[in-house]
């Protein structure tokens, strides 16, 4: 592979804290690594672990989950649900051979633009050091997104559409 590896990270943010922290990082012109792409959710409690798997399966090298600090959730305590899911998800991903550095949970209040920027840059560096999320040759070879429709035999039975 030529050049350096640039990881892509999908970041999930909470509308009330970390998304605002990202806004603040912007207004304060804090610079951070461009490798992250943020998705706004209403709350870290909205984070369905499926989103994390989906991002990893679709080519992201890491996933950053962010939310309000414990005790500061806009919806009282939903960030704790994110915490519970994250702690369990992390255990499971480890079993699947995915390095724990690739999926991180960071608390960032609306005031912590600089902290969020710092966390992002640090995570990009860590993942850069890990390299791309490499699936074993076998998994890569089997192309799950290949269109299959052409192979089917025609049927003369009546089928609901």
């Amino acid at each position, binding site marked *: 592979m030529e050049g350096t590896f640039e990881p892509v990270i999908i970041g999930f943010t909470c509308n009330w804290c970390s998304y605002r922290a990202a806004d603040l990082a912007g207004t304060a012109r804090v610079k951070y690594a461009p490798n992250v792409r943020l998705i706004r959710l209403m709350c870290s409690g909205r984070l369905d672990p499926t989103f994390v798997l989906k991002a*990893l399966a679709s080519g992201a090298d890491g996933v950053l989950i962010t939310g309000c600090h414990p005790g500061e959730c806009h919806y009282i305590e939903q960030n704790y649900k994110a915490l519970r899911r994250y702690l369990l*998800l992390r255990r499971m991903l480890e*079993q699947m051979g995915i390095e724990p550095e690739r999926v991180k949970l960071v608390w960032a209040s609306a005031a912590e633009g600089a902290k969020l920027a710092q966390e992002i840059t640090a995570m990009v560096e860590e993942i850069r050091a890990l390299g791309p999320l490499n699936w074993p040759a076998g998994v890569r070879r089997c192309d*799950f997104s290949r269109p299959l429709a052409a192979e089917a035999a025609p049927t003369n039975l009546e089928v609901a559409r």
Partner: protein
Amino acid sequence: MSENGKPKFAMYWAAGCGGCEIAVLNIHEKILDVDANFEVVFWPVAMDAKYQDVEALPDGAITLCLFNGAIRNSENEEMAHLLRRKSQILVAFGSCASEGCIPALANLTTPYAIFEAAYAGPSTDNPQGFRPQPSWPAPEGELHIPEFYPVVKTLDQVVPVDYTIPGCPPEARQIAAVLDVVIAALRGQATLPPPGAVLGAGGSTVCDECLRLRQEKKINGFARLQHVRPDTARCLLEQGVLCSGPATRSGCGALCPLAGAPCVGCYGPAEGTLDYGARLLSAVASVIDSNDPAEIERILDGIPDPAGVFYRFNLAGSLLHGGR
């Protein structure tokens, strides 16, 4: 149509335990309807047949093919392609074909480790340390055995599939019901469901059929069934026994929970679910009754094998297929 005018039926057993084959026999006298309405052209368990016989058939000659078992090796995949070409309706029959099932748990490890476990170790007598080789020069000529794939795939990951019948194995009454619909459709008395549909199952989850009493859920600790004596009338999950019922497609009649054992999830994901394990994991984690990271970790220690539990039947069909 065949010579006797009956539509052709096939059933094939790929990587799986064979329970699905037995399940078909479990439909009892209904099997007579199969015989009455179909001509069985290929069913290795039930009758002698050669792959060449299938290859010889014109494309689309088989009306209904029930394919059970996952795609573990090149033979499985070849047969999947062959039967797809020859069949009008290809059904992923049972959990292995549709989700990967237990064979797919091997995706958590590598072929090397699998061979080490099978061909070495204390219970294996293999002093020369033989390992399977894809080809071998025998006096009769070069011999081949099917190639062992690095990961287990589901049927629909190698060929397009018309319908899925979930379950490990599918419930006999559900199989019977599906056969009834197909037979009725063949007679023009019914319409087949849209392609891609899941047949022989319900639209909700196992809890819908479970009669155990339920309350709001708060889990303070997980325990394995053998270590606790759960209340016979109350929801098992509420008592810390990890039951997959909430995330598992209904249709089985909640057999396990009603018999006192937690649902293990063999009917697969509910309608519209992209990743079964993630859904179940999210639900279970959400109701852990603690906000303290250390305490949560302690509670999670009660689930020693999360990937194995949440993806017991579903690893090959999941988003990450089992990781690396």
